[in-house]
């Protein structure tokens, strides 16, 4: 079965600094990967997705992620964060059957002024 590992549980960063949230996956089948964001007291919303094609994927709010097959990684990046980016971020992908979605444990991003 596929697994998704988020390497950092919490990431504090100052406003306007760059940030990288790390995600590693394992899979023996075709890979779809996602990043979802959860703002306080809300459900999750899709930030970006990799289905095929270009390995650099751009999402909403200036985020991007790079699919790296050799390193089995799908790290999320933003060159300059804002206070409003404070949220929990989840990396996710399908299980081997392709029907269910498996989520990482989440990374809490704290943006400080």
């Amino acid at each position: 079965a596929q697994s998704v590992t988020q390497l950092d549980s919490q990431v504090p960063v100052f406003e306007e600094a760059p940030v990288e949230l790390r995600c590693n996956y394992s899979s023996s089948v075709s890979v779809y990967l996602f990043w979802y964001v959860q703002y306080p007291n809300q459900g999750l919303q899709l930030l970006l997705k990799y289905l095929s094609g270009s390995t650099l994927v751009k999402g909403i709010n200036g985020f991007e992620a790079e699919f790296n097959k050799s390193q089995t990684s799908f790290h999320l990046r933003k060159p300059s964060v804002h206070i409003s980016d404070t949220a929990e971020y989840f990396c996710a992908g399908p299980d081997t059957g392709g029907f269910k979605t498996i989520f990482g444990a989440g990374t809490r991003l704290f943006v400080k002024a």
Partner: protein
Amino acid sequence: DVKVTQSSRYLVKRTGEKVFLECVQDMDHENMFWYRQDPGLGLRLIYFSYDVKMKEKGDIPEGYSVSREKKERFSLILESASTNQTSMYLCATGRPGGANVLTFGAGSRLTVL
């Protein structure tokens, strides 16, 4: 946009009570899911359904049941609530095939005393 509505945002129940969590979607998606979210554990799949009256166990179905009598409505039932079921419950929908991108409701935070 797909809208997924969870009717109860916050609930407080007593041990042994029967609890119903309702989820309604308005975009004719075939697949519906119930997850629970706990700190440090990410999202764990409780049950899912890919058609009316169809249901499949997820990774942690014990203590839960579901009902899907209509395509747009997927209910999660706790027959006899226990304190270890205190959690955030998230409903999600998706289309079959492809990458199964999920759309989430705002969540229902359940506290069992």
